[in-house]
């Protein structure tokens, strides 16, 4: 369970998150919605441990995640094993010479046997529809292909929590459906999926819970899918994001 209490985050250029209180249960599919620049990506950075909140506390299960706690390499690495993060710009995540090496990078870090690594890589490439790309150079892939390879490379680590920042951008309608179905399967297998998006229509049938941000970086609503169904006005508002 991820718990955020009174979280605020300040960039030198201004406020990104203002007094956010959230409890995200394990095994849920959560959609983070809101207009551009409302703080969704910053929240994901905090959840992944890449950024520390200016004020407030962040807790995973019973463990308080602080800058001091993250200074210990063992603790930081344990957190990274638990939480996977697919960046909004997948270009930044791909640094290996081939797609195969890219996906194998994570499992190799886990110290798995080469046969197990090969098995995992093949599975992840197949799940994301990237098997044909395995010998290609990630740099030369299209935007949508890079997104899928980035997801495969994070999946290969088998994280319990999967953070995704606008993962559907640049994908075709068919590929979007396939990715959402895969994420739903992962959630049904017990993983926590937290996905930032500004497209409500795409995720409304998949997410079980919606965390909605205001443009002023405050939390507008934290609703279950059922509760949101009862609010057609809010749904119409979200559809216009």
């Amino acid at each position, binding site marked *: 369970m991820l718990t955020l209490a009174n979280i605020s985050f300040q960039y*030198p250029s201004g406020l990104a998150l203002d007094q956010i209180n959230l409890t995200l249960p394990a095994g849920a599919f959560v959609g983070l919605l809101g207009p551009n620049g409302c703080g969704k990506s910053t929240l994901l950075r905090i959840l*992944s441990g*890449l950024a520390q909140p200016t004020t407030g506390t962040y807790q995973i299960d019973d463990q308080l995640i602080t800058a001091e706690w993250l200074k210990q*390499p*063992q603790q*930081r*690495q*344990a957190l*990274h*094993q638990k*939480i*996977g*993060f697919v*960046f909004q*710009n997948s*270009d*930044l*995540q*791909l*640094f*290996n*010479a081939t797609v195969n090496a890219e996906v194998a*990078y*994570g499992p*190799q*870090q*886990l*110290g798995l046997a080469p046969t197990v690594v090969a*098995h*995992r890589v093949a*599975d992840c490439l*197949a*799940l*994301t*529809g990237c*098997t*044909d790309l395995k010998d290609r150079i990630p*740099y030369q892939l299209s935007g949508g292909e890079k997104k899928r390879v980035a997801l495969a*490379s*994070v*999946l290969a*680590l*088998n994280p*319990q929590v999967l953070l995704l920042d606008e993962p559907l951008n640049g994908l075709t309608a068919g590929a979007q459906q*396939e990715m959402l179905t895969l994420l739903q*399967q*992962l959630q049904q*297998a*017990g993983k926590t999926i937290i996905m930032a998006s500004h497209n409500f229509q795409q995720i409304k049938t998949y997410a079980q819970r919606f965390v909605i941000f205001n443009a002023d970086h405050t939390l507008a609503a934290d609703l279950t899918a059922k509760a949101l169904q009862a609010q057609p006005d809010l749904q119409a508002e979200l559809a216009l994001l």
Partner: protein
Amino acid sequence: MTKKTELPTWLQQPDRPVQPAKHHNFLVKNSRRLAQLLQQLTSPAGIGQPLLKTTPQLQLVALLFTLLLILTSQLGWQLWLLGLYLLLNCLSLAGRQLRRFLRNWLLTCCVALPLILPSLWVSGPNVLLRFCLRTWLLLGFTQYYQRTVALPYLLSGLQALHLPNVLILIIDIACVYLKQLTTYLLASLEAVELRTIAVPKHPYRLIAGLFGSLYLKSQTYALTLNEAMEVRGFNGRYQPTAPILHSRWSDYLVLLPPLLLAVVFFLEK
């Protein structure tokens, strides 16, 4: 596109936690350094206060004049006076800034040393010593300037000195370009860190991969930037937009110390 639809068993159960290695700070340290560089490139915050507050253009003139003095100084006492002047300047830096200044200065001095050392065989130890001192002073003053003037202000200073617009454009683009690459490398290091659970098995391959990727992206970025400028009708004319800070009489005080030193050196001759 053939796609597997069922999740494999290993993905349906959590992995055993890996025992991470104890010493693995390479990524964190480098990320921190890049964040500092980025701050220096983007905002004047974190930049030290110079000894005498002045405009960037006068600070640049003072620096160039001081560098000229160092290059023309031949005697030991002249270099000693210039060293004292550098020390006096350094006193204005805050503790953290001073530590960074000293660390970078020492590093650049060490890098310069192998280039200077061959002069020992060519001209002997006395010349080598003077050469070393002058090079270290040059590096010290340049480092001090870098610590006290943010890059956006440098552009404003160059503009106020009426330098050719093309030169300002080149420096402007270089700054933007450097900022982009730093941002890119910082985000890449973060991405690597997120997927690096234990000590990298092949750290040099990882570094090579990162730099290879950076090289390719920078090439693409440069070409795209050029195309974007052409598409928007760039024809070689450039009007700098950085606001010019006009100098008051008190700003000229920054030129006084190097001028005084020049007078003393001249009189002693």
